[in-house]
């Protein structure tokens, strides 16, 4: 048994503070990394827990803590240059009067790449940053509207329909998930869970649980469809970002519409690839392509029962208890209890997040599992707050 002695967040905070003022554009008032600095730069590009899972745990032993600190400090020059490039990119954005998209989401990784390629910004840096910004906002990038135009071409629609049919014809996987293995991941994920996730993935429990959803009524119980039996998706001709049907009832267009602009695709070939992948994804268990996604879907669906049976379920239930108090403190009590549709809302939101990760080609390390589950419940909780407010106003306007 390895002694787990230090919180990762604390180690990271200390190391970050050692970097000093030169990374201020990536830091908050307290000198800590911004949420997106951690999520988009430090974790995926500097610490890389996918490759070094022992650095991804919430609690680190002394050796891992030292290694994490060393990695961050070793990246000092890159991070300082990234901060400088980010400032230049924001300046270029302002000069071009661009207001779309979150600058951190759009530029952080690009700024890091520039830092890697060019080091600290030199004399021609303003031009370089300007070109980079132009590239991000390239008008040739595929948008949701382009996707719709593409999918509504009769020949394309027909071809995609054929692909969906072919993919669904060879739908595979069966068996039963092992409840003990699922529970083991839920017990471990808040503090680790690497071995437990690997065991689930190796055994294919996620696929087995996903395949079981094909039995009449099962997917509806999870909130993933309004129908008794799940049908293959339509190609689709319309999509709005609000009022979407449950995930399994969404057309290919609806599944891709919101995300496609962020995928930085240019040209029909790229579009075609994304659509093909979605057609195939829809036929797989849980309608997800990766076994790790399916494993997390399976575990999430169990944890969302909030039954106190596992550590994760207890932690999630704790969020609901806090929420009851916070709602009163914010004068927003609606008297609802977690059981009121929260489980299915959770499962739907989790699916959307996992599908989104697959679209963007992001790995799913064990270190991300708990943050993902907790983040999904947070979204469900905050959505409910907004809904209470909206419902009060709407009733009054009637």
């Amino acid at each position, binding site marked *: 048994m390895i002694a787990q002695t230090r919180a990762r*967040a604390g180690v990271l905070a200390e190391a970050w503070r050692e970097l000093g003022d030169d990374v201020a554009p990536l830091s908050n008032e307290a000198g800590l990394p911004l949420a997106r600095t951690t999520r988009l730069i430090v974790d995926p590009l500097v610490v890389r827990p996918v490759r070094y899972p022992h650095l991804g745990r919430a609690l680190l032993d002394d050796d891992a803590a030292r290694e994490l600190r060393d990695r961050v400090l070793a990246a000092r020059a890159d991070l300082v240059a990234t901060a400088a490039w980010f400032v230049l990119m924001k300046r270029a954005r302002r000069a071009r009067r661009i207001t779309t998209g979150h600058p951190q989401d759009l530029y952080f990784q690009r700024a890091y790449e520039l830092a890697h390629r060019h080091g600290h910004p030199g004399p021609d840096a303003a031009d370089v940053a300007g070109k980079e910004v132009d590239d991000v906002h390239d008008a040739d990038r595929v948008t949701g509207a382009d996707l719709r135009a593409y999918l509504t071409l009769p020949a394309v629609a027909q071809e995609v329909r054929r692909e969906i049919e072919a993919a669904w014809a060879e739908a595979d996987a069966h068996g039963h998930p092992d409840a003990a293995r699922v529970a083991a991941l839920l017990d471990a994920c808040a503090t680790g869970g690497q071995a437990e996730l690997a065991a689930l993935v190796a055994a294919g429990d996620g696929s087995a649980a996903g395949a079981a959803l094909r039995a009449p009524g099962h997917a509806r119980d999870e909130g993933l469809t309004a129908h008794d039996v799940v049908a293959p998706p339509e190609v689709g001709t319309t999509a709005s970002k609000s009022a979407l049907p449950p995930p399994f009832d969404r057309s290919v267009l609806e599944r891709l519409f919101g995300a496609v602009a962020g995928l930085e695709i240019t040209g029909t070939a790229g579009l075609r690839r994304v659509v093909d992948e979605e057609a195939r994804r829809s036929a797989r268990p849980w309608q997800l392509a990766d076994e790790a996604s399916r494993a997390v879907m399976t575990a999430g669906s169990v944890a969302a029962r909030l039954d106190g049976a596992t550590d994760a379920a207890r932690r999630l239930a704790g969020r609901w208890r806090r929420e009851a108090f916070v709602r009163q*403190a914010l004068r927003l009590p*609606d008297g609802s209890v977690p059981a009121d549709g929260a489980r299915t809302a959770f499962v739907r939101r989790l699916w959307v997040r996992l599908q989104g990760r697959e679209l963007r080609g992001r790995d799913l390390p064990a270190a991300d599992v708990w943050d993902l589950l907790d983040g999904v419940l947070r979204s469900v909780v905050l959505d409910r707050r907004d809904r209470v407010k909206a419902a*009060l106003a709407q009733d009054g306007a009637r």
Partner: protein
Amino acid sequence: MTRPVAWRTAVFEGAGALLWWDLGTGEGGEDVWDAARTAGWLDAPRDTMRRVALDAWRAAWWPASRVADVAPLDPRVLCARRAVALAALDGITDDDEAVERALRELAAHEARLGPLEEAAVGPLAARVREVADDHGLAGTAPDAPPRREDLALAAGGTPATGDVLMAGDDRVDPGAVPQGVADPLGRIAWQVGAALTVAVTVPAAPVAGDPEPVVLTAVADGVTVPLHRAGDAWWGEVPAPPALLTSRPVFRLVVPGFAAVPGVDARRLVEIAREVGP
């Protein structure tokens, strides 16, 4: 942990911990629910976190009242201040999108009340536009919305005339209604007239700009009186069920879909408001 009394508590939702300040006792505390996540920020100074918490409390509980002479606060200003402070706490808040959420809330208030700049608040407006720009939400400031001055005319009612068979007034419970609905120190005045109708009047909470629409009813044993906002007061009248005359009714306010926050002390709210200031 024992949590403080919700209605007089300012809360900040941090990553891994809920910080709270009981404005009634001056006590502060924290409910750490994920210690690993709080490492790095829990020991940092809490001034900005307290500011965020106080502005959220003001938005929820500030007891604007004609009776107690407490002026309403502008929700745009509260929202803008919160957005700016939350941006300084990026990486520390439980919700990674807290700034965007506050900015969207601000935009909704602006759509209803007009641009923040109209509230003339010095550097705050410029700063919040900067924050919006930094978060990709730098939409153009909205046009001033159409005024709805005809509202008061449309909803105006006349008090029951003639003989009064029975009358009384009951306490407004601020915990039973959302912010900006009823004067927390007002009374629910009711009377049963000779025509056997019961009429109810409740002073409205003063608000900045037009009030947000809400369904409000006054409820006593066996009778529900839908109320309509007419200027400074809510008013409604329905036939009085005979049973109403057999004992003195006690009216309370009910907003459908809103579960009352128990134990709210309106006088204490006003005292706290005077202590913490606008």
